[in-house]
């Protein structure tokens, strides 16, 4: 993503230099630094929240929190990991708020709104639409920590180490959550639907 002024960082403008400037209070540098991950971060929020308007709201909050906390970023992880961790925490807070709202439409009731992949053949789209719906509902019905685990590892394709770091837990605990999540989704969707999908 280009910066707010359409500027694309050149090779000389490294992440380290942008970080140093951002930590010194340069908003534009912060936007360029974080803007490089904005699209990916927004997709993560969509996957975790399943609601575009809420994802947009939380994305703004993530960036504000990152800006407020950037002087405390010491580079113990990558900037991407640090930013993603804030995003996961904020998404979980949003899900907790949603769960406390009695009149709210539960994500579990409608499932994640997951469009068919555009590159699929129409016949395959039709064959997989039911599986997509079932998977979306199963993922939406998971407790947030389990949903986060399966989204980070299986949907986002992050390594276990990176995903565990973002989730803020050890690798063994992360794997335990991931395995639990897969078992629950498998139970909810059913072996027949999965095996016949030809995956």
């Amino acid at each position: 993503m280009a910066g707010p002024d359409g500027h694309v960082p050149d090779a000389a403008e490294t992440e380290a230099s942008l970080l140093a400037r951002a930590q010194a209070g340069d908003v534009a540098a912060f936007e360029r630094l974080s803007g490089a991950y904005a699209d990916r971060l927004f997709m993560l929020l969509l996957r975790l929240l399943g609601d575009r308007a809420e994802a947009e709201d939380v994305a703004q909050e993530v960036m504000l929190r990152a800006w407020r906390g950037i002087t405390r970023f010491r580079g113990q992880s990558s900037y991407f990991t640090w930013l993603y961790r804030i995003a996961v925490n904020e998404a979980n807070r949003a899900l907790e708020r949603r769960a406390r709202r009695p009149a709210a439409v539960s994500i579990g009731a409608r499932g994640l709104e997951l469009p068919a992949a555009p590159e699929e053949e129409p016949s395959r789209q039709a064959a997989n639409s039911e599986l997509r719906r079932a998977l979306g509902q199963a993922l939406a019905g998971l407790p947030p920590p389990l949903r986060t685990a399966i989204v980070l590892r299986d949907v986002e394709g992050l390594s276990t180490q990176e995903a565990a770091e973002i989730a803020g837990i050890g690798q063994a605990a992360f794997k335990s959550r991931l395995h639990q999540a897969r078992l629950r989704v498998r139970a909810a969707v059913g072996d027949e639907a999965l095996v016949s999908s030809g995956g």
Partner: protein
Amino acid sequence: MGMLGLTDDHEWSQRHLSHYIEGDLHPRARRRLDRHARGCVDCGRGIRAMRALVYAVQGLDGLTGIRAPVTIFDRVRLAGPGGPPSSQHA
């Protein structure tokens, strides 16, 4: 191996199918699951189902190419220039 052993193996295998496809099982445990799955239709299908699940989830949402909203930095801009307010908690 008696029925009790088979039942134990079956329940244990069902609980560890995700570990199996992830490559997280110790070689001895992997051999145990392999040995059981060769004679167990449910667990053989369970392995295929778990692999299909991961494959399906990987390509699930079709969200590639989605752009972040242009408003994503609005609150940062509203917070104003002059440096990140380090006294506040992220």
